[in-house]
């Protein structure tokens, strides 16, 4: 698609705004510092675990830096509009985040904010 006038743009914005929203978003800070600290295996672990439980309403995305570089790799889970930020995540923690925190709604350790 190519935007050739203002109404094209408005239409695109409308379409995006009306897209079905996932109830839960998981974000992995995936910039130079995060990747250096080991964000790649964390993303892979999250993907694997999400697939395993066949979760439909969870979206996983890689983002830039959230600013909490000291605790990289970081993962932010947004559930019912509430953000929970996990720090020093590794693949074991990633599994736990999906299984316990996202799926079972249990409070788990590793929250930094």
């Amino acid at each position, binding site marked *: 698609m190519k935007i050739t006038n203002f109404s094209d743009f408005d239409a695109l914005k409308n379409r995006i705004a009306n897209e079905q929203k996932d109830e839960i978003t998981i974000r992995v800070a995936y*910039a130079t510092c995060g990747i250096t600290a080991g964000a790649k295996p964390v993303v892979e672990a999250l993907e694997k675990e999400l697939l395993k439980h066949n979760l439909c309403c969870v979206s996983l995305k890689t983002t830039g830096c959230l600013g909490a570089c000291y605790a990289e790799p970081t993962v932010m889970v947004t559930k019912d509009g509430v953000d929970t930020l996990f720090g020093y995540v590794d693949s074991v923690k990633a599994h736990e985040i999906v299984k316990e925190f996202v799926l079972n709604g249990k409070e788990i350790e590793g929250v930094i904010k």
Partner: protein
Amino acid sequence: MTEYRIALRNSGLIDPNDIEDYIKNDGYSALAKVLKEYSADKVIEEITASGLRGRGGGGFPTGVKWKFAKSYNDEAKFVVCNADEGDPGAFMDRSILEGDPHSIIEAMAICGYAIESNQGLVYLRAEYPLAIKRLQNAIDDATELGLLGDNIFGTEFGFNIEIKIGAGAFVCGEETALIHSMEGMRGEPTLKPPFPAESGYWQKPTNVNNVETFANIAPIILKGAAWFSSIGTEKSKGTKVFALAGKVKNVGLVEVPMGTTLREVIFGVGGGIENDKEFKAAQTGGPSGGALSKDFLDTPIDYDNLIAAGSMMGSGGMIVMDEDDCMVGIAKFYLEFSVDESCGKCTPCRIGTKRLHEILEKITSGNGEIEDLERLKKLGQMVKETSLCGLGQTAPNPILSTINSFKDEYLAHIVDKRCPAHRCSDLVKYEINPDKCVGCTLCARACPVNAISGSPKKVHSINRDLCIGCGACDTACNFGAVFKN
């Protein structure tokens, strides 16, 4: 103190490789708004009224700069984004480019519309391969969607962006040097005027702004100048992003309103000093700035206060130092950087920084004389006043500010031949604590240069003049009686 995100509004929240995620968060709406509703002059008026000042270091009012650039008519004009981020220890611009590249593209297009330019260039340092990749990807996506290219939104206005990759020279962050480097030449600065606004890239009118400056543009357009100027202090509006690094607990990026104090940044958002050591200083402005001692912890941070404190805002690097850091050593570190990075074009900078570094070397190796302090000050002042570009004009700042705030440390090195932080290896000597020494003689036997005297069962002592600081006595002692001093 809470953080307030304008420049970092999307960073960490959106997927930088997904243009729709950016659009969902009001992306490209500011560009649409100016192309639909604003004249070029109105854009400039709005930016001027917002009070936004350049975030690349100098703090020049952005609207005024755009007005200059617009006033020169030419068939070709350029919008340049300075993403050289040369201050070692600063990473705000990298984070913005990696986390929210479209915000820079959109702002550059708005600037292009305002100053009547159709071509943008981003000068990005080669050390940031991921930023290069994400920005190029974003440029391609925007072009594909028609948000870059000819006739954007069907209007007369067209804009394209090209990335130019640097090759590792700090001086290329200076705008005239940057332009020469983009032309494929040695990045040597030239005398201003003419300013780039009049004669820049290929002698055409060129507007250069920093990454973070651009990152503030779209919110100002969408929320209005009055909103932006309500944040911050009288002369410094909006927020500033700092890259907190060094001996602080929560190393990372913080964006706070101008006027926030150093204490709030370091002890609030930053969580205080690592390992609960004592705060000694924070360096802002990198090699061009100065060290702020604890006396400045409660000074509100803005352009003018930092200059008054002997430092400068710089691009936003903030290196926190604790009791274990030697301030003479830090000054020497920065001078070494400036000696390395001086392009060599003008003598005061090329030779002057070298001489300054030599004097510091002399002091830290234990050969300093009291007259050296005066020499540093005099020569430093001279280099500042006579260098051609900002590099030389600011290179002595780390020395001058540390002499000012940490004179006792210089005196300890020069007079007592001691390094209070135990960092300068030539000055690290050992001593024996008489309360702990039991006279076992182990240390005396371990010392390779026979610097330790004392008879069995009597307190031993070390002759400072003979001690070479090898630490063998410390390792040998079973009673913890030996310590560095």
